[in-house]
């Protein structure tokens, strides 16, 4: 028996190897944009993926109801128009009649309804569920109209809907349970092939409602480090690339044939403490850490100064002068005193986790923080992990401290409600909440007057920095590099690559 199987197996193997070698993939068409990035997507379910690398890919394939433009203004996507009821407890969307999924079927209100019901279903474990808890019911009076009935006024809801985590997926795929395995969206590009950690092949969606896509497709190569990406750009193997490492990005302008796009982003580099673990449960300890950290030094060292020290609020219109925030000036005396008061005069040991290459500066940040915190007797052990392993630990809140790059939103509420509200779905990650934070968040959510909202969130920010569950460090830039012949790319503060839909090759 064994012999029979093994012969068959071996024959199969040789045959397959031969086929493989002879019939490799067909050449990419000339007008495809060749692109490279380092960190590949970790999954295809738009409702679940939180990693930047996944979102960057899914933004090209799926569309939410609305999206942000480069100034963070909300513009139409699947929905062509929308309207809040005067009491802000109902919102009505008109869908774009031209909007079609990539299998040719139109995007209907039923798809929208099904998508949001999937999002709200606890079993889905959707990343952005907390942002949509005010949705009481969803109605689809006709194929082009959707009405969301809200349990209470919710102004940030619309910004939350602009996230790819609220993408519209076909109802049929939800029923079939194939959302995570088959990427079928209504976006400008269709995913033809995905070989994780190796490459993606995208082709232009001819029927895209947003207009004509400038290239025939995008061939994305995953290159294992950014030096390789730089080399690929220099030798013109690649037209367009995503750069994460500021060290590499600063080398791009030296090349005559390359263009660097540098956009400030909402995402923030942060040292997350885990206040559910000792001794980070001690406020004085957290504050001591906050005071001991020299944020500018972290920025200068890890990111060669590419960025800006920030507080929790990174979006235009809400940002405060960072220097006014408590402990934003390194104060070792105060930090040491706080440590002593908390009973940790001789320090303690803790482990900090960081992901390999996500962000590119993670390892460096961890090492700078390690050396800074050593000055007040905190001994940090650095544990570097592969991104998906890291995300797993991060989602479970299984860490003492974590170096992270968290995404920002145009609205403070949708940015932080998942972490710092009592019902936030990432409460497990932040492990910190108090009544002040929760009530300020609720107030901000229902407040419609922009000036008042600004005050509310200024208080929120101040309190958050005061209680220091996390140590906000800085915001950096998103970088893309391209050959001179790539035209029309529009970066956004979210770091989205959606602008690739308008790119053309000369």
């Amino acid at each position: 028996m064994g012999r029979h199987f093994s012969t068959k197996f071996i024959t199969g193997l040789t045959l397959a190897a031969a086929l493989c070698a002879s019939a490799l993939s067909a050449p990419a068409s000339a007008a495809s944009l060749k692109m490279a990035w380092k960190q590949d997507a970790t999954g295809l379910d738009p409702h679940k993926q939180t990693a930047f690398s996944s979102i960057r890919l899914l933004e090209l394939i799926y569309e939410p109801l609305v999206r942000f433009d480069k100034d963070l203004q909300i513009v139409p996507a699947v929905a062509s128009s929308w309207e809040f009821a005067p009491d802000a407890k109902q919102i009505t969307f008109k869908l774009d009649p031209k909007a079609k999924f990539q299998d040719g079927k139109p995007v209907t209100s039923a798809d929208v309804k099904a998508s949001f019901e999937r999002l709200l279903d606890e079993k889905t474990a959707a990343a952005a569920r907390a942002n949509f808890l005010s949705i009481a019911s969803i109605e689809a009076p006709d194929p082009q109209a959707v009405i969301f009935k809200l349990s209470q006024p919710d102004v940030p809801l619309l910004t939350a809907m602009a996230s790819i985590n609220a993408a519209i997926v076909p109802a049929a795929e939800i029923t079939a349970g194939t959302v995570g395995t088959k990427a079928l969206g209504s976006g400008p590009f269709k995913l033809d092939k995905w070989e994780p950690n190796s490459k993606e092949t995208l082709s232009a969606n001819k029927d895209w409602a947003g207009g004509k896509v400038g290239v025939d497709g995008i061939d994305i190569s995953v290159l294992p480090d950014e030096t390789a990406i730089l080399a690929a750009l220099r030798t013109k193997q690649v037209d367009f690339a995503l750069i994460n490492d500021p060290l590499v990005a600063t080398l791009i302008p030296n090349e005559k044939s390359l263009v660097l796009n540098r956009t400030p982003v909402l995402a923030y580099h942060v040292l997350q403490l885990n206040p559910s673990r000792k001794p980070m449960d001690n406020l004085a300890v957290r504050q001591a850490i906050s005071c001991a950290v020299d944020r500018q030094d972290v920025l200068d060292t890890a990111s060669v100064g590419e960025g800006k020290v920030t507080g929790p609020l990174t979006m235009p219109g809400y940002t405060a002068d960072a220097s006014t925030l408590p402990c934003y000036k390194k104060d070792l005396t105060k930090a040491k005193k706080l440590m002593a008061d908390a009973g940790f005069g001789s320090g303690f040991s803790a482990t900090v986790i960081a992901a390999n290459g996500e962000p590119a500066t993670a390892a460096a940040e961890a090492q700078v923080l390690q050396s800074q915190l050593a000055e007040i007797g905190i001994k940090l052990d650095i544990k570097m992990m592969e991104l998906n392993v890291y995300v797993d630990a991060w989602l479970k809140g299984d860490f003492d401290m974590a170096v992270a790059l968290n995404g920002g939103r145009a609205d403070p509420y949708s940015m932080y409600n998942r972490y710092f509200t009592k019902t936030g779905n990432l409460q497990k990650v932040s492990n910190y909440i108090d009544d002040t934070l929760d009530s300020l968040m609720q107030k901000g959510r229902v407040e419609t007057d922009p000036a008042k909202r600004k005050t509310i969130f200024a208080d929120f920010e101040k309190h958050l920095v005061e209680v220091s569950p996390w140590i906000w460090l800085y915001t950096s830039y998103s970088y893309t590099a391209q050959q001179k012949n790539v035209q029309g790319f529009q970066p956004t503060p979210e770091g989205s690559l959606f602008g690739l839909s308008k790119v053309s090759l000369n």
Partner: protein
Amino acid sequence: MAFLRAIFSHPSGRIGGTIVLVYLVIALLGVFGVTPHNPLQQFRIDRLHGPSMKYLMGTDLFGRDVASRLMTAIGQSFLVAFASVAIASIFGTILGLTAAWFGRLWDGLVMRIMDVLLAFPAILLALLIIAIAGPGSFTSIAAIAIVYTPIFTRVVRGPALSIKGREFVDAARTFGSSRRYILTRHLLLNLVAPLTVQVTLALAWSLLTEAGLSFLGLGTQPPAASLGLMLADSRNMMETAPWLLIFPAVAIMISILGFNLLGDALRDIFDPKTRSRPA
């Protein structure tokens, strides 16, 4: 003494021996922290400083002194290499010796297990072990030790088998010498030469494997310095700060070269073919 003289009168032994001695001194200094600067201290104003009188080999991204880090890295790499080779040689010797002596089932079992271990490329087996046990210096030591145990087993078993058939072992049996006496005084004592050669060469491989593992981020963890890690960190700065690449690269090369040269010399010294012998 005569042994050392033999090494230093052999051309490649002289070079290899000198290199190894110099590295051993550096490694010891590195392990005990006798370095120009604190290898972990970040001199923030002097980040990415080129080689100078103050920082002989420049500083890295964090403003840490590369020379000092290199010294501790060599210490760290040598620690891993020596520990793993010590383990591998002890286990390999015991297994190879007993396999050769007892033969039959035990020999078959041991050698088949070694065949299984040898069916994996060294770095792959090491990676697999690290995947199971998680990265770190101790795992590196264990992984490298496991990878090289089969080699020692084979290196010991072959000569042990041939010594077992030599007439002085027959003679010992005719006297009724105990098994322990024969195994230690006759077999093991005569295996010292091939073992010494093998240990030297294994140290070279082990340094190489350790560097590879830490280059992949699976060996020594930051901020501790290790040669592979320093190289990995230098990648993004190859153009702006080439000294970060060149010094560790040359340091690895020369250390391995030293052990290889020494191993070659030892092989020549121990080789009966090159030794004059009345016949």
